[in-house]
């Protein structure tokens, strides 16, 4: 009898355990979905607004979706010359920065990880210590320098610094990855008579693809989003990049504020970043787990 009672007890507790686990899981999903809504909502609101009429925008309301989607908002945007100009300026700058920075960063990371030379540790430590220097330290004098070069109101101040392996955190990330590749690869190639340049291009770079992808996506998002540098240096509507174009869209003098136009421009600005992010998100997450910084 006694044993039977304990057995029943046990099944009972197991059952409660089971339901508890279920309840916990349901609560967890509820919390996750609730939080996701909070994170996604501004984006959804942006898209919804971009399709509203100006009357709908002006009214106080909670409707996420427009009563009647106004695709003409986008027609208006796409017929605007300055929109295309800004878009191409952005694409142009991002491509050049990506090309220049990724190439130079990978060369430097290669030197810091695969080549043995006297004083490498010292130079590497100096590079890492630049991570501590806030960008403000060099912002002002760089402006003066570019001013003296007559580079204000040109793309140069934004693209050229990248060619000099800008970004210590990118070098660090790539170097960490290259350190992990087996040493025998270079040695075998060296015996075959390859010089370091060939080793870099034919052996290390193809193997470092995941890390190169990681730094590329960080760079892409960072450059595409960057508002401060274009504001400082471009100063001329013809040279505006997308961030500046979008920011200037909000003209506080207009009443009522044409939020639907601002949001349409915002949506077209955000789309490339979102697409890149969705397809490459594992690189972002790996990148942050490796270095702890966001680029």
């Amino acid at each position, binding site marked *: 009898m006694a044993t039977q009672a304990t057995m029943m007890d046990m099944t009972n507790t197991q059952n409660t355990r089971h339901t508890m686990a279920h309840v916990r*899981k349901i609560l*967890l999903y509820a919390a*996750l979905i609730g939080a*996701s809504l*909070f*994170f996604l909502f*501004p*984006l959804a*609101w942006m898209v919804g*607004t971009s399709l509203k009429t100006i009357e709908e925008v002006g*009214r*106080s*309301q*909670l409707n996420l979706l427009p009563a009647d989607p106004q695709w003409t908002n986008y027609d208006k945007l796409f017929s605007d010359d300055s929109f295309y*100009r800004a878009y191409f*300026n952005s694409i*142009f700058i991002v491509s*050049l920065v990506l090309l*220049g920075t990724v190439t*130079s960063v990978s060369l*430097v990371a290669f*030197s810091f990880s695969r*080549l043995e*030379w*006297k004083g490498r540790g010292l130079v590497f430590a100096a590079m890492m210590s630049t991570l501590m*220097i806030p960008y*403000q*330290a*060099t912002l*002002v*004098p760089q*402006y*003066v320098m570019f001013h003296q070069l007559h580079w204000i109101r*040109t*793309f*140069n101040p934004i*693209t050229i610094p990248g*060619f000099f*392996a*800008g970004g210590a955190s990118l070098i660090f990330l790539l170097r960490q990855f290259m350190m992990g590749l087996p040493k025998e690869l270079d040695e075998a190639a060296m015996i075959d008579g390859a010089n*370091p340049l060939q080793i870099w291009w034919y052996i290390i770079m193809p193997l470092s693809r995941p890390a190169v992808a990681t730094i590329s996506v960080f760079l892409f*998002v*960072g450059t595409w*989003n960057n*508002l*401060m540098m274009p*504001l400082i240096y471009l100063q001329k509507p013809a040279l505006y990049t997308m*961030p500046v174009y979008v*920011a200037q869209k909000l003209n506080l003098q207009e009443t009522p504020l044409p*939020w639907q136009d*601002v949001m349409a421009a*915002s*949506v077209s600005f*955000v789309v490339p*970043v*979102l697409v890149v*992010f*969705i397809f490459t998100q594992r690189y972002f*997450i790996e990148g942050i787990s490796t270095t*702890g910084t966001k680029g």
Partner: protein
Amino acid sequence: METQARLDNLQWSLATVVFIIVSSIALGFLVQFLARLRGLSKAEQRKLFWGVTFAGPWIVGFFIFVLGPALASLYYSFTDYQIGDSINWIGVENYRNLLSGEGRVGRNFNKAMLNSFYYAVIGVPLQITAALIMAMLLNNEIKGIRIFRMIFYMPVILAGGPAILLAWRYMLGSNGGFVNESMRKMAGFFFVFDYIYRGFIFVVEALNGFYTGIVHEDPVGPLKYTIPAAIAALLFLSLVRGEWGEGKRLLAWRGAQILGIIVFYSLLAQGLIAEPVDPSWIYVVGIVALGMIVLLARQGKREVRYVQWGALVGLVVIALAALNHVEFEFTSVAFTRYLIPLALVATAVGGSLIATWDRHLIQIITATIVILSVILFVRLIPGQLDDGRLNVFTEYLTFGSTLDTTTDQDYLEKVYPVASMSPFWIYGLVIAVLIGVALLDETYARARRYLATGALIFFALFAIGSFLDARTYFKAFEEIATAAGKPVYHFALFRQAIAAFPGSDRVPLWMNSELWSKPSAILITMWSSGAGMLIFLAALKGVPQSMYEAAEVDGATASQRFFKITLPMISPAMFYNIVIGVIAALQTFEIVYILQTPLTRDSLQSAAFLLYTRTFSELHIGEGAAMSWILVVIILTLTVLQFRFSRSWVHYEA
């Protein structure tokens, strides 16, 4: 036109590539040549050539874009350089303008720094809490967790650009914006939500109203003593309570260090501003510095060097400031007031730097401390009694008032109390007692307890007394102001917020009010705290499951498991997030740029934003450079401090 610009840029890019290749190879050859001179082997030379050539782009870039500009900006910061103007050396004028908090620039800088402080003290903890909650939600092995992780991280990608910030600006519209509308709907839906809604509005408005009062430098009267005294009382309370151990000693020591650094920087700033420094300060600095030196040297710590050099630098600054103000005559009384303590302290500090440590030296320095303390005490009594400084102490400790309403009516606004005592006196006292507490070892356990308890009682009484006097002061101020028909602007927004509770007519005004602008910025940073979340998530994954199981067997509750296992185990991640968060708070730019309205620009702006407007819109290069150097010093100090103090609470796995 833009096509031309792009073509130009391509040409420049090509030229840059050629330049980098040529200079890198040249650098490689140069280093190879130097290696040959130093007699390195052929193979070593070869390796050096390749290594330096490959690292060349960074090395060349470092000189052109980092080192050169940094030195140039240091130079500019001492000039009145404006683009298109000649450069004139003006010494520390820029720094003085910024740090004095006077004039348009100084006031703006002051406000921006206070805003950054607000973001760091209120924003960063909220951000970190949000990140930790998100990470703990994601730290579950269930289906679809990767998708949730992606969604949680996505705001980080978007928040770097202006588009989503504009969407937030629209959603946060005070009149019919989505956030307010939905909150109002919720509040009307269920009465509990209504209470929460009104409570939220009240807390935010009261907090920000108080903060705005401080930023606008409303006359705070005796409140300026209340806050430091109350903090000191709390500190001593935690020292007195419970068992005395190594942790308590460390607490006293750390407290003394932090306050010492604050006082040191304030003195440095005062020295730069070149206000006449009260000679009593030299005694305080001397006592504090020498106490620290003895303590550190007895423990054989290497940090003693920092204190020694720091004290010497401080003395030089004070001496220069004094020379700036006192007629430079060796025989003048004014000069000897500075000369005697300066010589005393400098000799003792310098002696401790040169001589080897033995018991005699410690005795000599201790004797110097005693002499300095005696002189300071004597100076305090006859010198200050007339102008009422000591009066402040006696009155507050007996809950009296130092208010004198008999004099003219503007009087209250200008000076209060009768003779304004700098609140830094309190810091000096606290540091002195803390060092005393930290110095006394087990042999003098009783003396230590008496000292800490005495300090606790002293500061508690002082805090209460000054608070009571503050009330008298506010009342008197109000009467005088109403009689004179002047506005009573004492924490007006704060008082409005308090009076409005629990009214139903208040709505969050977000970017349209100083009370709400900073909370809106913080809301957005909380929304995009996914980077911190990933750091926490990685740390949480590293906590061994067996620890939780063992704790569960021992009957630990969920909150015990969180505070006793999770938090200590992820403390390195926490530390990292705090460092990054505080630095980011100083550098916020995009949010301010997009959210600001003419009304809230001042209350939103961060130091980085002010730097941008001052330098690149108004083209004051010299001032901008000075501002950036102040920022750099603050950021570096914060980083170093956080690393140093992390040792006492961050647990790295063995």
